[in-house]
């Protein structure tokens, strides 16, 4: 016998506490469910592959100075030396590092003219060793050849006439065409400057992990003719740390320059996702705190109402209620309060999600978060009320006759 009717009617006569708890449950649900959804989204993001061999790659900066320093000659020699090192799979000069937080972006469009919008993407300037060093797979078209690579001077503003782009970028540029069919198509950079897509690679993330276009990237066949440059090195599995030392020492032998900023990709990834990790920790703390506070609220209200109704419980026992009947009364009562709370909570959750999606450009949460959240909050309520309800069962039947 669930006694839903009388319990509900009795509740209506003592609304205040119950309504407050229901509201607390509703807010708790809205915040917890949205937090879980954000945590899930963020943790999925931190797990996204960047496309490169993160475990076995690192980069190092070289800044030349002095009158005898020659950029072209140094770069050529460095690349030759690096590629010849035992344990190095491949090495390139590069302008920016994936997931590092800093780099170049441009826009590409399929029609020439300033009136068309471009689609943003990250630019990686590499030679024909780019695919090998970055560990990306060519899905269609061809890699650059040595003769494709040009030297880009400091004042250069034009672009090479061919590029390799990621599959994600190909799909964005030509949504109606299979990516393999985009090889050979012309796209425009700087509104009007044509470039031919010569190859498609599987995956290469932009340097900015929070960017909407993080999967859009292109390889541009060029060396940067500069005194300060950066090399990206990929090693055989397990040999990264050893080679980091070797490379640093080797490059430092040239006294016309300074070597610095050597980092593993694992390090920059951790640094880039640090705010994600922090956000996850903060939200987890919020969830735990709110759960505790709400549980305490429920325990408090239930304890209060058990104390207030001692006599009544004794009367019910005298009239034939078993201990289980008494336990059930409080469990059912809590369930009714929780039900009102989670229905209200479902609306608040959706409302808060809409606000968050607009304000923080999150993806809207999946619908099933709502019913799961409702269930979980009802369960929390049932667990919280169990203690006070159990105490209520110990009220003696004689309370009915012994107290006035």
């Amino acid at each position, binding site marked *: *016998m669930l*006694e839903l*009717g*009388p319990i509900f*009617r*009795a509740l209506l*006569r*003592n609304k205040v506490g119950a309504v407050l708890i229901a509201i607390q449950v509703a807010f708790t649900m809205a915040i917890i469910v949205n937090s879980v959804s954000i945590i899930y989204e963020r943790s999925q993001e931190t797990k996204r592959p960047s496309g490169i061999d993160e475990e076995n790659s690192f980069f190092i900066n070289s800044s030349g100075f002095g009158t005898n320093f020659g950029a072209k000659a140094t770069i050529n020699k460095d690349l030759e030396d690096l590629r010849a090192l035992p344990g190095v799979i491949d090495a390139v000069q590069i302008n920016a590092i994936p997931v590092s937080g800093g780099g170049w972006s441009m826009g590409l469009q399929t029609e020439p003219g300033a009136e068309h919008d471009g689609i943003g993407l990250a630019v990686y300037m590499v030679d024909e060793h780019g695919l090998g060093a970055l560990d990306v797979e060519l899905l269609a078209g061809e890699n650059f050849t040595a003769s494709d690579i040009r030297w880009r001077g400091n004042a250069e503003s034009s672009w090479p006439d061919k590029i390799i782009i990621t599959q994600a970028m190909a799909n964005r540029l030509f949504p109606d065409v299979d990516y393999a069919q985009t090889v050979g198509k012309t796209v425009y950079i700087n509104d009007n400057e044509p470039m031919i897509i010569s190859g498609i690679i599987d995956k290469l993330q932009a340097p900015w992990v929070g960017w909407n276009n993080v999967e859009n990237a292109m390889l541009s066949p060029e060396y940067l003719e500069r005194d300060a440059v950066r090399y990206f090195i990929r090693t055989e599995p397990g040999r990264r740390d050893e080679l980091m030392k070797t490379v640093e020492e080797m490059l430092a032998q040239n006294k016309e320059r300074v070597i610095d900023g050597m980092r593993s990709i694992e390090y920059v990834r951790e640094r880039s996702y640090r705010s994600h990790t922090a956000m996850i920790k903060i939200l987890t703390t919020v969830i735990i705190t709110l759960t505790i506070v709400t549980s305490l609220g429920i325990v408090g209200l239930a304890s209060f109402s058990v104390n207030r109704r001692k*006599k*009544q419980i004794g*009367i*019910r*026992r*005298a*009239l*034939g*209620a*078993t*201990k*289980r*009947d008494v336990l059930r009364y409080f469990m059912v009562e809590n369930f009714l309060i929780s039900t009102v709370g989670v229905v209200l909570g479902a609306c608040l959750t959706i409302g808060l999600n809409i606000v968050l999606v607009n304000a923080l450009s999150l993806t809207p949460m999946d619908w099933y978060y709502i019913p799961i959240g409702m269930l979980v909050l009802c369960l929390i309520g049932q667990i919280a009320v169990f203690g006070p309800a159990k105490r209520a069962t110990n009220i*003696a*039947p*004689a309370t*009915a*006759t*012994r107290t*006035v």
Partner: protein
Amino acid sequence: MLTMTNVKKVFRTDLVETHALRDFNLQVDEGEFVAVTGPSGSGKTTFLNIAGMLETFNGGTYQLDGKDVSHLNDNQRSRLRNEKIGFIFQSYNLIPDLNLFDNVDVPLRYRGFDAKTRKQRIEESLEIVGLANRMKHLPAQLSGGQQQRVAIARALAGKPRFLLADEPTGNLDSEMAQSVMELLKNINKSGTTIVMVTHDPLLAKQATRNIFVKDGQVSEIEDVIPMHVANA
């Protein structure tokens, strides 16, 4: 139908032991209306609580309907109480948050009756106490006498064999007390056995039998209440 033999009840606190009942012997037969009188603290409520299985006892035997109830567990006692015994209390003990209908409904729900049976019994018993037209009222909206009638309806609704009443008229003026008494007499006439604790000798006299409890024992059993008891 109710037989207590040498029933003992001791209340122990850290400081004192109170022998609330000592070798309490009593037999109540089916159809009787027994009035229990006795000085304050003599053990009347204790006896009623044990008779109604609200409390356990420390020695002796208690048979209800020929069945030894001393070894029943809490659950079994609750069931038996719900089925066989109706309680009426001095302070009515209606549940303030429930209207009259829901109040009378309480023991019926624990009994597991279906909604139709419950409704029928609630209406029937409220009819008997003359409050069928007040079903949606809250207890606070009634006079003391009316509240006690609702309590009687609640005790009756489950059609118990036994009605136990602890000073049911203690909070009522003599006129209301008498009308409650008439109600109880009618209920007794229709077959329900009643044991009622009272301080009022005039009401006690109207019962079919009087017992006098003193120091936790039945000290006298008389058919007509003697004057020295009335003055006690």
